[in-house]
């Protein structure tokens, strides 16, 4: 095996963007569970139909940390519709590829966002 991460993945792992919590978040959404091993919480602040601010915390592997970091960077400032188009495929592509076995780690953040928006719309 061995870690086969490119420099961009390592950079996002070592210097993750937007880590933490947002006290005035409009939506807080958690996906995964400690039992299945991966867990991620997204804190989202919306303004004028846009992602005004977003932060994350994760109990996950290096790839989960790196891809979640990149995802938050990609959706910040985008409209909800645009942000929903940032799928895990997009994240993997922008980060420059992941080893096959680590691709699933990139699902966490987009899944959390999608789920968050669905719940938010239901409430509206």
């Amino acid at each position, binding site marked *: 095996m061995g*870690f086969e991460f490119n420099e961009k993945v390592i950079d996002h792992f070592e210097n993750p963007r937007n*880590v933490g919590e947002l006290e005035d978040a409009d939506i807080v959404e958690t996906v995964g569970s400690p039992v299945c*091993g*991966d*867990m991620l919480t997204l804190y989202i602040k919306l303004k004028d139909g846009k992602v005004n601010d977003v932060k994350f*915390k*994760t*109990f996950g592997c290096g790839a*989960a940390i790196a891809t979640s970091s990149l995802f938050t960077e990609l959706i910040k400032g985008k409209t909800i519709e645009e942000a929903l188009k940032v799928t895990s495929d997009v994240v993997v592509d922008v980060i420059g590829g992941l080893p096959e076995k680590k691709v699933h780690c990139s699902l966490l953040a987009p899944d959390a966002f999608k789920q968050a928006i669905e719940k938010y719309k239901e409430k509206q």
Partner: protein
Amino acid sequence: MTSEIDRIYLDNSATTAVDRKVINAMLPFFDVKYGNASSLHSFGKEATDALESSRRKVATAVGAMPKEVYFTAGGTESNNIALQGVMLKNKSRGNHIITSSIEHPAVLETCEFLETIGFEVTYLPVDKMGIVSLDDLDGAMTDKTVLVSIMHANNEVGTIQPIREIGALSHEHGALFHTDAVQSFGKIPIDVEYNNIDLLSISGHKVHGPKGIGALYVREGTPIQPIIYGGGHERGLRSSTENIPGIVGFGKACELISTHLDKDIISMTKLRDSLIKEILDSVPKTKLNGHPTKRLCNNVNISFEAVEGEALVLSLDRTGIAASTGSACSSKNFTASHVLLSMKIPDIMALGSLRFSLSRYNTQDEISYILDKIPPMVQRLRDMSSLWKEE
């Protein structure tokens, strides 16, 4: 020695560096003394001499007779021959094998295969420290029990089983006793007589020998049949032209164990205990997995609450420290290791397990370097963790 350390290897339960003396012993057998031990000419004689001299060294290291030692391609093959070879040979005596739930896959998967062809297997549970209970073993014995296979020491948590008592109990019930000593060999003195062992698996690459070579000790008179057929090498138990360079290297590694072991145990134990104590003291919400004293002298296995093991291994790797984790994440069914789960370690802890495994080459300087790196590294991951709650 701080920043100039380039890499620190603390994954010796996975594999070890080959000792220089071992390499030098092996070299002539590649291009000078490269004969086939079955040949009649002088090349063959050189190979045979090297083969038998290595066999004596392996035998000495475990207190056996040379004729009871069979060379194999490693620990996995030794375990396979022991389990399949004994069960297939003794069908008329019974069909039951007893093992534990924390064995290496080389034993567990072999048992699962044996189940598919009609044998019955009992997987004994372990306690929180990873120890098999003699009462459970006694209770699992039936008149159909042919073989008990319990590892000497566990590869993940380092827990040492009471093999002498397990061997004695097996014999009381007329069963044979096999032990996977791949991890304990070179870390605990082993004597097959004293420990009541009928079959024992060891491997070269875990003891500063080469990869792809191992041995199976089979007590004289033990009914066993081969699982590989061919030219009848290794007295018919393991056909295939002998891997003479590997065997010579393994023999040399065993000789070094026989002379070094006491000293190695003392130095590794000291480093192990300092690592354990300092990590537990300096990082909160941290727990030692396995037994505090019935433990391999080279094993440290610690769980860091709310930290994912693989992220920690990656962080360590980035600072040049090689370690491993008991958690392996695979799509959709991420689980902690079967060993930690058998020991009923809670998920949140089991997923954050980290294993350091030492060798006789590690130094106090290396340990101090690691102890400097760990606390901030764990804190960084905890600050990011959705499971971490600061008190």
